[in-house]
C-alpha cells in the first residue's frame, strides 16, 4: 500500500514507460552492435549476445515484484552510473583483460549483457501494471505506451543512425529523464544535467580514445589511432591507423583489410582476373577498400560496384584514396543495394564479377557463399564471363571454409580454377562455364603480379580435395555457425590454435 502511494503519478508513469521503450530500442542498436563487435562478431557471438539481451528482460521481470520501491530507486541509480560509462568501459575491459584472460573477458561480457543492459527497463512495466487497479486495461494502455516509445526509437535510429554520437547521447538523455522521474528531487536534476553535459561534450574524445585502447591492446595494433567509426544499420565499421601509418578496415570487429596478405587480396581477387579477361562490363559485389576501381576500372570499360552498406565505400573514399585512387577513374558507378536483389533486378550481363564479401562467419555472409547465390551470379554472366572469389583460407584437405566455398562453386560452374599465390596466404577461385584463359595464363599473370609460387587446381582436382564437404545452400546454412564456434573456442577458450 505504501508502495502504491509513492508510485509516480499517471502522466509520469506514461513518460517513464515511453522512454523505457525508446531506450530499449536504442540499446539494441548501439550497444548490442558494440558488444558483438567487441567479441569479433561471428554468428555464435551474435546468437549468444541476443539470447543474453533477451534474458535480461526475464531478469527484470523476476525482480519486478521482488524489489521494494526504495530498492528500485537504488537499482535505478546504480544502473544509471553503469550506463553512463557505456560504451567506453566495455572497450577498456576487453582491451585490458582479454589478452591475458580471454575466456573471463568473454563470459563477463555475456553476463553483463544479460544482467546489466535490458533488465532495468523490463522491471518497470509489470511493476506499474500490477500497482494499478484496473487490471487488463492498465496492461493494454501501459504496454502500448512502452511500444510507442520503441516505435519512436526505431524512427530515431532510421533518421539519425548514421550520426555516430547521436544514438548514445539521445539514449543518455532518455535514461537521465527516467532517473529524474523515478528518484525525484532537485538534487538529482542538477546531477543528471551535469552528467549529461559532461557525457555529451566528452563523447567523441572518449569514443575514439576507448576504441584506440581496444584496438591497441585487443587487436595488437601499436599506437592505434581511430580515423573513422560508424555504426551503420548493418555493422560497426572502424578504420584505424597504426603508429607506422598502416591502415585497417574492421567490420564488426573482424579485420577486413590491412595486413600484407589482405592488401594482396585485391591484387589476386580483382586485378588478376581483370587482366586475363579484359572485361567490357565488370561488377564488383562488395566495396571494401574500393581498390576494385584501380584494379578492374583500369582495364574495364565500365565497372559497377554494389554494396549493401553505404558507410563502407564512404569510409574508403575518405581514408583509402591513396590506394584506391577512386577519383582518377570516371568509368565506375556505386550502387547501394543488396547483392541478391541487384542481381535479380538488373538486366545487364557482366564479363567479370568479383565477390569481395567477408568470410562466411555469419548467416548473412554465408548466404552470399551459397549455391543459390552463385546460380544468381551465373545468370548475369555474359558468354565467356567469369566470377572471381576468395576462398577465405588456403585450399587444402584440412581447411573446411575453402572447401565449403569451393563445393558451392564446383556445383554451379562447369569450369573452375582454384589458385593459391604463396604471397597471399589464401586461395582464390575463378569460375565460369567457359574460362577465356588457360591454367598457364593464370599462373603467368599471378607471378607477374608478385607471386613467387602459384598452386593451381582444376575442377576435377578441386572436387577430389573438397571430398564430402557440403556447400552452403538455402536448406543448410549451418556452416557459418560451425565455423564461428571453432573461432570462438580458439580465440577465447583455448591456448592452442585450431585449423579452420
Amino acid at each position, binding site marked *: 500500500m505504501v508502495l502504491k502511494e509513492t508510485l509516480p503519478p499517471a502522466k509520469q508513469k506514461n513518460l517513464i514507460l515511453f522512454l523505457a521503450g525508446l531506450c530499449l530500442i536504442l540499446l539494441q542498436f548501439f550497444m548490442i552492435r558494440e558488444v558483438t563487435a567487441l567479441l569479433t562478431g561471428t554468428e555464435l557471438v551474435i546468437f549468444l549476445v541476443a*539470447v543474453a539481451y533477451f534474458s535480461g528482460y526475464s531478469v527484470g521481470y523476476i525482480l519486478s515484484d521482488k524489489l521494494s520501491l526504495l530498492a528500485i530507486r537504488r537499482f535505478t541509480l546504480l544502473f544509471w552510473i553503469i550506463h553512463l560509462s557505456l560504451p567506453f568501459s566495455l572497450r577498456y575491459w576487453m582491451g585490458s583483460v582479454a589478452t591475458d584472460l580471454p575466456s573471463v573477458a568473454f563470459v563477463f561480457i555475456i553476463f553483463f549483457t544479460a544482467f546489466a543492459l535490458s533488465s532495468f527497463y523490463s522491471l518497470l512495466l509489470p511493476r506499474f501494471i500490477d500497482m494499478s487497479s484496473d487490471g487488463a486495461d492498465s496492461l493494454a494502455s501501459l504496454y502500448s505506451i512502452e*511500444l510507442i516509445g520503441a516505435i519512436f526509437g526505431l524512427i530515431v535510429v532510421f533518421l539519425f543512425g548514421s550520426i555516430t554520437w547521436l544514438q548514445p547521447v539521445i539514449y543518455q538523455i532518455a535514461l537521465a529523464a527516467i532517473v529524474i522521474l523515478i528518484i525525484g528531487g532537485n538534487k538529482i536534476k542538477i546531477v543528471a544535467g551535469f552528467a549529461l553535459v559532461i557525457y555529451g561534450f566528452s563523447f567523441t574524445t572518449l569514443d575514439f580514445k576507448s576504441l584506440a585502447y581496444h584496438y591497441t591492446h585487443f587487436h595488437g595494433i601499436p599506437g592505434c589511432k581511430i580515423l573513422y567509426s560508424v555504426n551503420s544499420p548493418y555493422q560497426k565499421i572502424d578504420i584505424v591507423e597504426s603508429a607506422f601509418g598502416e591502415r585497417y578496415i574492421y567490420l564488426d570487429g573482424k579485420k577486413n583489410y590491412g595486413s600484407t596478405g589482405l592488401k594482396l587480396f585485391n591484387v589476386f581477387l580483382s586485378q588478376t582476373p581483370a587482366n586475363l579477361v579484359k572485361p567490357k562490363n565488370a561488377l564488383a559485389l562488395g566495396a571494401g577498400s574500393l581498390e576494385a576501381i584501380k584494379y578492374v576500372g583500369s582495364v574495364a570499360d565500365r565497372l559497377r560496384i554494389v554494396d549493401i552498406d553505404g558507410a563502407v565505400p564512404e569510409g574508403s573514399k575518405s581514408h583509402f584514396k591513396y590506394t584506391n585512387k577512386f577519383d582518377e577513374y570516371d568509368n565506375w558507378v556505386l550502387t547501394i543495394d543488396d547483392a541478391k536483389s541487384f542481381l535479380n533486378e538488373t538486366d545487364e550481363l557482366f564479363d567479370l564479377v568479383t565477390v569481395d564479401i567477408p568470410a562466411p562467419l555469419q548467416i548473412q555472409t554465408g548466404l552470399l557463399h551459397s549455391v543459390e547465390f552463385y546460380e544468381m551470379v551465373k545468370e548475369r554472366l555474359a558468354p565467356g564471363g567469369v566470377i572471381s572469389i576468395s576462398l577465405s583460407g588456403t585450399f587444402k584437405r584440412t581447411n573446411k571454409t575453402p572447401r565449403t566455398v569451393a563445393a558451392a562453386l564446383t556445383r554451379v560452374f562447369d569450369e573452375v580454377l582454384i589458385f593459391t599465390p604463396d604471397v597471399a596466404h589464401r586461395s582464390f577461385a575463378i569460375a565460369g562455364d567457359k574460362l577465356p584463359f588457360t591454367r598457364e595464363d593464370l599462373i603467368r599473370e599471378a607471378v607477374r603480379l608478385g607471386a613467387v609460387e602459384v598452386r593451381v587446381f582444376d575442377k576435377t582436382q578441386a572436387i577430389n580435395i573438397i571430398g564430402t564437404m557440403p556447400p552452403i545452400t538455402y536448406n543448410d546454412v549451418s556452416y557459418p555457425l560451425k565455423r564461428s564456434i571453432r573461432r570462438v573456442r580458439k580465440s577465447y577458450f583455448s591456448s592452442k590454435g585450431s585449423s579452420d
Partner: protein
Amino acid sequence: MAVRIKYLFVIVMGIFFALLQTCYFFQLEIWLTAAYPSFLTITMAWLLGNVVGLRLISDKTDSIFVSRRLWVILSVIAYYSVLGLLHLFPYQMNLLPVYGVLIGVSGVMAGRFFVRSRSIFESSSRLFLMENNGFILGWIIGFLGFVRFGISFNLFAPLIFGICCYVLIVSVSSSTKG
C-alpha cells in the same frame, strides 16, 4: 493440471511469437532483401500491430475480433501469405508495404494475447516472464532450426506452433470456464 496448461500456453505463445519473427526475418532476407528496410518493416509492423491489438480492439465488445483463436489463425494465414508472395514475386521491393500489413496482423495477435491473458496469472510480471522465456526458447529454436534446415524449417515451424497455440487456447479457455 490447469496450472501446468496455463504455463505451457504462455510459454508456447512466446515460442510462437519468436518463431514468427525469425521466420519472417529469414524469409524476407533471402527472397526480398537483406537491406535495412526489410528489418525495419518487420520490427515496425510487428510493434504497430501489437499496439493495435492492445488498444484499438476493445475487450468489452462482443466483436469476434477480441478472440485470441481468431488472431492465431489470421497470423498463420498472414505468414503463409507472405511466404507465397515472396515465392511468386521474389525481390519485389514494391510489395514491402503489403508485407508490412501482413506482419502487422501477426503483431495484432501478440497484442491480443497480452490483453486477454492478463488474468491468467496473479501478477503481470509472471505473464511477461513466462512469455519472454518462451520467446527466448523460440528464438533459439528459430535460429537453430534455420541454421540446420534452412528455408525448409521456415516452411513448417509456424504452422506446427500455430496449431499448438490454437489447441492450448482452447484448453485454457475451457479450463477457465470450468
